[in-house]
């Protein structure tokens, strides 16, 4: 570690990768992409940062513990299913808002579910890799 090129590259690539991962997540329902691959790209961004600097630095910019992300992701996915159930339909029924939002597009519980998948994937990947790298 300690390569200046990698360090600078990581600094500029990181936000780009993050934007790309969110882009993948949101367009996933209609174009190529989705929560899973988005999560992998986001995780890769943090790992790149960790390699260029160190794991502590990557943990600092992540702000939360990876396992919190895992739990939050599972919770979001479960809640997205509960919304349908609470409105009297079967568990996991997809519900959509009528009017699409600017930039993001149509909003519905499947998107929320995909956000859950996205968070779980980031969390698990970083949990494993950070742990291995630190130990």
């Amino acid at each position, binding site marked *: 570690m300690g390569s200046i090129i990698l360090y600078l590259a990581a600094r500029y690539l990181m936000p780009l990768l993050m934007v790309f991962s969110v882009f993948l997540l949101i367009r996933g*329902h209609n174009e190529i*992409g989705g929560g899973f691959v988005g999560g992998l790209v986001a995780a890769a961004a943090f790992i790149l940062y960790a390699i260029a600097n160190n794991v502590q630095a990557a943990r600092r910019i992540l702000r939360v513990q990876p396992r919190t992300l895992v739990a939050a992701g599972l919770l979001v996915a479960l809640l997205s*299913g509960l919304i349908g159930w609470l409105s009297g339909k079967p568990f996991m029924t*997809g519900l959509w808002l009528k009017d699409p939002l600017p930039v993001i597009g149509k909003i519905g519980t*499947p998107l929320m579910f995909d956000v859950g998948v996205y968070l779980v994937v980031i969390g698990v*990947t970083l949990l494993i890799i950070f742990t291995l790298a630190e130990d």
Partner: protein
Amino acid sequence: MDIILPTAVLLLLILSALAPFIQQAQSQRAGWLMAILPAGLFLTLLGRLPAILAGQVFAYQLPWAERLGVTFSLYLDGLGLLFSLLILGIGALVLIYGGGYLHGHHQLGRFYAFILFFMAAMFGVVISDNALTLFVFWELTSISSFLLIGFDHEKEASRYAALQALLVTGGGGLAMLAGLVLLGQIGGSYEISQLNQLGDVLRNSPLFLPAFLLILAGALTKSAQYPFHFWLPGAMAAPTPVSAYLHSATMVKAGVYLLARLSPIFAGTAEWQVLVTGFGLATLLAGALLAIGQVDLKKLLAYTTVASLGTMVMLLGWGSDLTVKAAMLYLLAHALYKGALFLVAGAVDHETGSRDVSKLSGLRRSMPRTALAGGLAALSMAGLPPALGFIAKEVLYETTLAAQPVAGWLTAGALIGNAILVAVSGLVGLKPFIGKPGETPRHAHAAPLSLDLPPLLLASLGLLAGLMPMTLAAPLVQASAQAALLQPLKVKLALWHGLNPMLALSALTLALGAALYAGWRPVWELTARLRWLGRFGPAHAYQVGLENLRRFASWLTYRLQNGYLRFYLMTIILTTVALAGLAYLRGANEIILRNDWGTINFYEIVLGALIILAALTIIRTRSRLATIAIMGIVGYGLALIYLLYGAPDLAMIQFAIETLTVILFVLVVYRLPKFTRLTSPPARLADFLVAMTGGLLMTILTLIVTARPVVPHISEFFMQNALRLANGRNVVNVILVDFRAFDTLGEITVLALAGIGVYALIRLTIGRHEIIIPPAEKED
């Protein structure tokens, strides 16, 4: 619809959850305060007695899982009412008593919570109409019993007894579930009130006998019938109020309840009469005889409880109008006196520190109120007039004498049992209080009101009911017997029946019992010498069975989970090959190969050759880093194939995963030991064969699937409906997050667990230098 029933269950559960906080806020009065709820419910239900006697039934229904036939349906009739009154009435007293008994105990709040939880569950059992609702409540009573027996969880004996009770009653409960489901399948309904009307249909089904035997297993284990009786004396490890409440007055009677409740279906069949009566008689004798060998107050009471439960089961098994009436009367009398005696034993234990009946004596001066309660309850247990126990015993003899052709056997059994009950009642209710004061670990002094009031109330109720049987006992007995028999019945009870054989038998019982009480010490010494017989008893069989089960489990675990990754892989591959191969061979399909391969492009050949070459190189490589790099080639090659054949989503994920895998390897590669060949050539040959069969299977499967779609392609449906039903054009994603979202939820949960598992393996390994010796080898 009767809203009171579900509200009562709910209120009890809520109070259970609040109990620890109430205990913290009002540590002195918590028991008294919380007793208000069950006492109020008791009065509410008591107010319904006239309506129920007139034949009215209170019901409540809530749809639950209707497609499975599960409704949350409650139903209060005479039988349920008798049990509910016992559960709520004695429950209120036990809450008061528990506050005094466990005064200052740091987990008193937890005790209240468990007791109330049990109360809700047990109340649920006796008012359930749906068989599966009943099962749920039934299991909840087993669980709360487990928690209460193991209340002193720091003692190993408590934990052992709790587990034993749970395994025995839980095992029986599972058998009962199977039996109830069979009944429901035959009858087409899970409502017990409907099943009870379908007796003829059910009895003519070939599944009737299995259903009956399974349900019987549930009832016998729960009510501690021989040979499952051993968990009940073990359950005496619980605090005494728990023993009084669960293991004498209410929960152990759940089996009796079930038999009574289902008797319209079963009673009258030969199997029922022989088995139920037989088990009851065996239990009556076993419990009574085992009671002789005890000196512990609670053990004495526990074994006589077993005997009394046997009596009730025996009576229900015989199944005539008279015996059902006798069983209900006996149940009422038993709950009143046995609950009281347990509470008395607890008070004595609490104040003197001893439960050894051979050492306790002369406590009447220091504990006058307790002595009074003990004496009154013992009167009823001994079956002396004017207590309710006397009437119950007379009716018992009346029924056994009428039970032709086995009247002799049943009467003799009842006589032996009752004589021992007389002796034990003297030992428990009389002996500790009379004579000269003896030495006790703690200086005896009067118990507080909270310890004396509950047994006094119960015992004097038993006496009053004997004095005024037509007012206090007959209505309840009539209501419950009517409900069990499903026909109107007149119940007449009186203290004086005139000079008849029953009175003569009573006198004989009393004489025998008194003789046994007088000569108790030599008899006890005799039985002490017969202790070794216990080695052949069911309790020992349980212990041996459990030990062997554990040994087998650890052996199996060591075989399957031996810690070698390649062994796991081999197991998975071989199992898959065996199962898939077997399924394929059974279908007896010949392999149809696809003959139109279409145009094969040049780059496809190159890609395929590259992957194969890489795979072949890996097995020759001697460098770990090279292996990782070549694995990467295989992975990226696959990703390219996805891309070429129109699965960009998969390809993208594959690329990302390959990249992350390489990073993972880079992180761990420095920590791994030198890359050497450790396996011998024969082992490598075996590995080769396993790998080849695995590969072969996958190749064949791929060929079959591509050649001939076995199932109509579901992908058509997804293609057509993705946009219309799920607002998405990316079909893969729509499947993942909408059509099959439930699967995905499961998958991400597994992913999360795997992540936590890796974390635990790396971070939380305790004593990582310790070599774990497998249990099988430690034995030598």
